[in-house]
């Protein structure tokens, strides 16, 4: 293929990266603050997409679906932590046990959706809008909306983490929960907020993902879990900025390798980048103090 495909594939990479960034930042924020590897994240995305679908099919706009998905994501992540994860931690379940807990919760969510919705495919009722061609890119309005949403969300997250007391508290909790608590930070509240924020982004990402894939089923979100994790790891787990950059790198690598090498291997290349980075810098590109949610 020639250079003519380069600019469009960068554009497509940006759309992929936007979806990935929403999901990966949510994932990494929560992991950084709470240290729980939430493998139910992908299935929670699917659940939010189902909620958005119900809203959409009852005449709600896409904005309303996004809102509903985000609200559902935030609420269910919060409740999941309060009602399942925290009780397990209090009961003394270790890190690895927690991984099994989250994986089990994911399997339960996914199959509950299958039991309720049935083994079929769903599509939102919406128009992708007209195509626009800024600077040689090819987008439609729906994709521009996705990119816009992701950029806005990233800016808000950045500002929250760097400019507010809450952000400081979150970073402090991530770096050293004991010390944070000793310095008067209400770490329980910080943890709650981290879950809410993570769930919010997770819900948004779920709806945006299925807007982009158009058709979805009960396994759609869990199929994306690993690349979300890869994006988070690439930037250094727990670091919001890192996850953003990780998402961008993976989005671009996937699409450009699909353009110049082979679509069959595009994910392999994306994961390959991660492996190489890990060989050089075992904790990701943006390494600093481990576990820090950096601005």
């Amino acid at each position, binding site marked *: 293929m020639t250079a003519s495909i380069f600019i469009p594939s960068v554009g497509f990479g940006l759309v992929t990266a936007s979806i990935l960034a929403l999901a990966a930042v949510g994932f990494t924020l929560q992991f950084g603050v709470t*240290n729980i*590897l939430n493998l139910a994240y992908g299935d929670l995305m699917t659940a939010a997409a189902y909620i958005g679908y119900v809203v959409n099919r009852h005449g709600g706009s896409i904005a309303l679906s996004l809102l509903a998905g985000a609200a559902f994501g935030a609420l269910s992540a919060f409740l999941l932590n309060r009602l399942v994860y925290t009780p*397990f931690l209090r009961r003394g379940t*270790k890190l690895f046990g927690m991984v099994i807990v989250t994986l089990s919760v994911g*399997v*339960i969510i996914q199959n509950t959706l299958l039991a309720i919705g049935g083994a079929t495919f769903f599509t939102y009722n919406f128009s992708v809008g007209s195509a626009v061609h800024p600077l040689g890119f090819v987008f439609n309005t729906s994709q521009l909306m996705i990119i816009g949403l992701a950029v806005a969300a990233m800016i808000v997250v950045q500002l929250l983490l760097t400019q507010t007391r809450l952000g400081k508290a979150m970073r402090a909790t991530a770096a050293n929960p004991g010390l944070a608590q000793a310095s008067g930070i209400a770490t329980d509240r910080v943890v709650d907020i981290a879950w809410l924020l993570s769930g919010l982004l997770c819900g948004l990402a779920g709806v945006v993902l299925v807007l982009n894939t158009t058709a979805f089923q009960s396994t759609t979100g869990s199929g994306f879990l690993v690349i979300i994790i890869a994006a988070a790891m690439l930037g250094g787990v727990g670091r919001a900025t890192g996850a953003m950059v990780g998402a961008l790198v993976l989005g671009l690598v996937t699409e450009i390798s699909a353009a110049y090498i082979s679509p069959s291997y595009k994910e392999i290349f994306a994961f*390959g980048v991660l492996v190489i980075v890990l060989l050089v810098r*075992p904790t990701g590109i943006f390494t600093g103090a481990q576990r820090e949610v950096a601005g």
Partner: protein
Amino acid sequence: MNATAYYLTTLLVYLGVDIMAVWALNLQYGIGGVYNFAFVLFQAFGAYIAAVLTLGSSSGNGGFQNYILGATLPFPLPIIAAGLASGLLAVVVGLVALRKLRTDYQAMVMLVISVIATLTVTNDTGLFNGPAGLSLIPQPLSNVVNPSSVGYQWFYVGITFVICAIVYVFVHRVTSSPLGRALRATRDNEAAAEALGKDVVRLRLFVFVFGNVIAGISGAVLVQFIGAWSPGSWMYVETLVFLTAIIVGGTGNNLGVMLGALLVPVGFNEATRYLPQIGRPGLIDALQWIVIGMLGLVFLWFWPQGIIPERRRRFAPTPPGTAPVSGSAGSGSGAPLADPTVLGEPR
């Protein structure tokens, strides 16, 4: 009845394979503290290697399958080769994943690696025949015993349990040796183990490779029995079933996890097949997965140490064989906070 015998023998072979798998995974996770979410990958790799080493040249059978390394090795060489190949792969993966990484990072890297492997095998159809997988894999010693007879089924059960016994000897040697204690120490407190001069990375790498050799062998035993293998057989969720077995049986205890293998992947799975079929088609199968998920949660909540808890080891190792009961881990049921060594750092 013949049909019952076929079913029973099939279950026994699966039981043997699952027991090897949970021993291996228990060695890695339960004893070594290595989070091997790519476990199924190593089982699958062993299965593929054993398959291509028995299938003969890929131009055979009308050439409808494409694969590497076609050969016709006599039993049990394909199984041994499968173990070694999985071990070799484990060295490579271990050097990437276990090196200087925090354990939860390791878990994530394992997930990523298992997905890379699935993608590679699915997309590179020349490797192991892509998404269609391999089939018509000959059964071992089928020239000695008629492979479609019940007799052969029992014969294969025998082979499986002999291999199981061999594997147990090695597993037991590791778990009861000073090495096993070093591994447990690493698991329970990495920093302390390091301070005592244990090379944590090397210990983990050893247990990772060792466990995956067994994983490869178990995959080979399975594939030689069922005669087919495809990428659908090893999504990472499959590891959840083994992990649940370990939790249920008793993390860190070889006999406990063996019981877990009987109860979860075999017993529970088979028992749910007898459920009445209610509701719309497929509903019961979704519910089955929900129940498997719940099973792990229920055990982690009520019996976090499983049915047969790991023996607590103080000072000198308890004499081998002492029944792992009576007060040695009273926290096994009802009082899960009793044992400080199993507590993490809840926050």
